[in-house]
């Protein structure tokens, strides 16, 4: 849905393909290397989107993301909500007749968007960060802490409050953080991944 | 007398006396304790000559080419490598399976006779280099298996190290290395004559027209000879290591053969020669999707 006139203008603006096309080949090659999948192979049949369970919520359908990349408009793809909404269920990759793997592309684009500070949906990113922080700290995930912290930081403190007590009573959430005795090894893994140039948050 | 020898003689005796075969190819003991040359046995009383020990290097399969017209069936003892030679010759249409009674002898790995020179019988002797690379000590084709199969060793052979060393050199260094090796060659052709993949009726090296190979012994001709041989046995070499063993000048020929075999496996997929009769040699067919980086 278009909210205001400004969005209309941006949305309908004609795209100048020339600068993008010069980038198309290098973008294609780098995606091939980093995501292991070749957007050049896509013939835009739409089967990925047709089966995508989240496409209804996306600003660009998965097929359109691939199209942006084919045209060298990667910036646009990186800014899209789509790459954050992808649930990595892999339905698209499984059914693609050209063996393009959109799910892998989403993964790579998300990592790149994050590195460039272009996170279009902060909630999912925040969730992932918090999750990994817990893993690094305790070795395992403390789900109650995760949800509480997430809701707090995503400014919806009362969300899911209704489920908490029920779960607690059913013995489903442990109020204390789980941990493994010596978490040094897991911390080490995070440290080494960082040292090797990864984010490893 | 070891149990292996006993079993050999028993079977040979039975085969000969029952008339199932008219000739047995095996190994005997000669004047030197560290050599076990081939022996041809056609009389039951000669069966006692047969032995099996750690010096039975010779690949008896090669003799079958001389015996194509032998009347009657021939029994031949084969180690793992020798059995691949049988397949090699069958695949090259050089011998007929129905004329053979193949007796498999799982091979525990042989000793290096050169290391035994000057030593007393029973002294400690190094393992033979060719057996260090062996992946098929157990016969792959046989009518009877004389004793239990042996485990396959997986240690890294010195030849692999040599190849790795050569691979890491510059082209000039490699060329210098091979120059030193090939300049030693005396062109005795023992490497070719012992090779079960060299089963041409007339070798191209022996031909006067076209004069592929000059008679002069010089580096260039020796290089031509060894490279041509490498190409001719490419994908057909059963890696028995006999060429290198018999070379009086100790030229590391298996480094070439192994390297080519490895390249072929890398390029076209695993295709060890002499294992599967149905599998055509890698240079005798092709795949539409073969790599072609260099084209």
């Amino acid at each position, binding site marked *: 849905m278009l909210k205001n006139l400004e969005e209309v203008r941006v949305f309908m603006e004609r795209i100048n393909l020339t600068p993008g096309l010069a980038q198309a080949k290098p973008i294609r090659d780098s995606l091939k290397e980093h995501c292991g999948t070749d957007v050049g192979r896509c013939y835009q049949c739409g089967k990925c989107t047709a089966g995508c*369970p*989240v496409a*209804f*919520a996306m600003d660009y359908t998965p097929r359109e993301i691939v199209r942006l990349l084919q045209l060298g408009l990667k910036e646009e793809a990186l800014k899209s909500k789509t790459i954050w*909404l992808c*649930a*990595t*269920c*892999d*339905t698209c*990759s*499984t059914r693609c007749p050209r063996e393009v*793997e959109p799910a892998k592309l989403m*993964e790579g684009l*998300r*990592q790149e968007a*994050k590195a460039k500070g272009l996170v279009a*949906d902060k*909630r*999912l990113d925040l*969730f*992932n*960060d918090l*999750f*990994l922080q*817990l*893993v690094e700290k305790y*070795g*395992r*995930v*403390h*789900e*109650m802490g995760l*949800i509480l912290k*997430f809701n707090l930081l*995503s400014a919806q403190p009362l*969300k*899911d409050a209704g489920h908490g007590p029920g*779960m607690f009573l*059913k*013995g*489903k*959430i*442990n109020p204390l953080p*789980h941990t*493994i*005795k*010596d978490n040094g*090894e*897991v911390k*080490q*893994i*995070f440290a*080494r*991944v960082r040292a*090797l140039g*990864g*984010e*490893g*948050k | 007398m070891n149990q292996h020898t006993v079993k050999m003689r028993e079977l040979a005796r039975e085969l000969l006396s029952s008339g199932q075969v008219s000739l047995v190819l095996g190994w005997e003991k000669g004047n030197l304790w560290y050599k076990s040359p081939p022996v041809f046995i056609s009389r039951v009383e000669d069966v006692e000559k047969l032995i099996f020990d750690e010096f039975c290097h010779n690949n008896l399969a090669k003799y079958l080419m001389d015996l194509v017209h032998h009347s009657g069936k021939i029994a031949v003892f084969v180690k793992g490598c020798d059995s691949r030679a049988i397949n090699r010759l069958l695949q090259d249409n050089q011998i007929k399976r129905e004329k053979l009674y193949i007796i498999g002898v799982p091979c525990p790995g042989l000793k290096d006779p050169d290391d035994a020179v000057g030593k007393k019988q029973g002294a400690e002797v190094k393992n033979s280099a060719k057996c260090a690379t062996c992946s098929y000590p157990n016969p792959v084709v046989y009518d009877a298996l004389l004793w239990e199969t042996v485990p396959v060793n997986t240690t890294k052979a010195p030849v692999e190290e040599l190849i790795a060393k050569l691979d890491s050199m510059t082209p000039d260094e490699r060329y210098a290395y091979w120059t030193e090796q090939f300049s030693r060659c005396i062109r005795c052709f023992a490497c070719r004559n012992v090779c079960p993949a060299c089963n041409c009726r007339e070798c191209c090296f022996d031909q006067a027209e076209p004069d592929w190979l000059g008679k002069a012994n010089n580096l260039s001709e020796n290089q031509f000879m060894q490279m041509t041989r490498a190409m001719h046995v490419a994908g057909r070499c059963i890696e028995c290591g006999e060429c290198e063993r018999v070379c009086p000048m100790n030229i590391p020929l298996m480094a070439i053969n192994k390297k080519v075999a490895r390249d072929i496996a890398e390029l076209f997929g695993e295709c060890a020669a002499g294992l599967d009769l149905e599998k055509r040699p890698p240079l005798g067919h092709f795949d539409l999707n073969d790599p072609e980086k260099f084209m």
Partner: protein
Amino acid sequence: MKLAYYPGCSLSTTGIEYNMSTLAVARTLGLDLWEIPEWNCCGASSAHLTNHLLALALPARNLAIAEEAGLDVAVPCAACFARFKATEAAVKDSAETRATIEEVIGRKYEAKYTVKSLLDVFVNTVGLSQIKTLVNRPLEGLKVAPYYGCLLVRPHKITQFDDPEDPVTIDQIMSAIGAEPVYWGYKTECCGAAHPTVVPEVGLKMLKSIYQGARDAGADCIVTACPLCLTNLDMRQKEVGEQNNTQYNLPVFYFTELVGLALGHDPHTLGIDKHFVDALAFLKNKGFLNPVQNRRDSE
């Protein structure tokens, strides 16, 4: 039959009944599950979405420990299973990756043993006939919608397990214990993973289509093998129903719970009392809670 067992984070919290029922049923089926000592979180989709190497390294540590013990690994959680399989494949695929991973985790891991989903263990290690013979409370008349979700079967190249479009292992197990699996199209549809929690406006819509699909197919309940799927399907049912002016009321089970029930275990031992949609009442109505005699544990 001894297997390394990796419960994963969910099975000690939101999916605790999966752990309870698995352990109970395993004993009956003669499975010796050796919990990987000091296991760590597999990183789930968060690591996978953030850093490739981290996503491979976290599971690798657990697998390395199992490899040291010389055991195949049984993984009940679909998400952990998918991550483990990805690591196993990456290590098998490239010696270089293997070396990097080994360096990161500080342990040797050669992928010598196999990672198996718990479903795989039930169908191929224990065997359907074995399960069948041990049933003494067949769940006759129970119409179940087998729900696999995404991670068990995709990507097929890596999971190498069941059919990616029409998986059947849960169906087979359900048939073995006397229940009737319905055929429906949503077996492998995504439950939304973290979406119902994190972006509910999206996640709840995803759940709706699954509830609807199960109901359209005439199922009484849904059976799954994934703690995340179960939590989503179970916890959000009321909410989604209200949003759509309907009531779904489809109890959601772990397949191990129903197997346990069929083998004669007490529903409390199996953790069936821990669901949001009242499963106990449902089972009682169906007449599956009458006590059973003669429960036989296999040797």
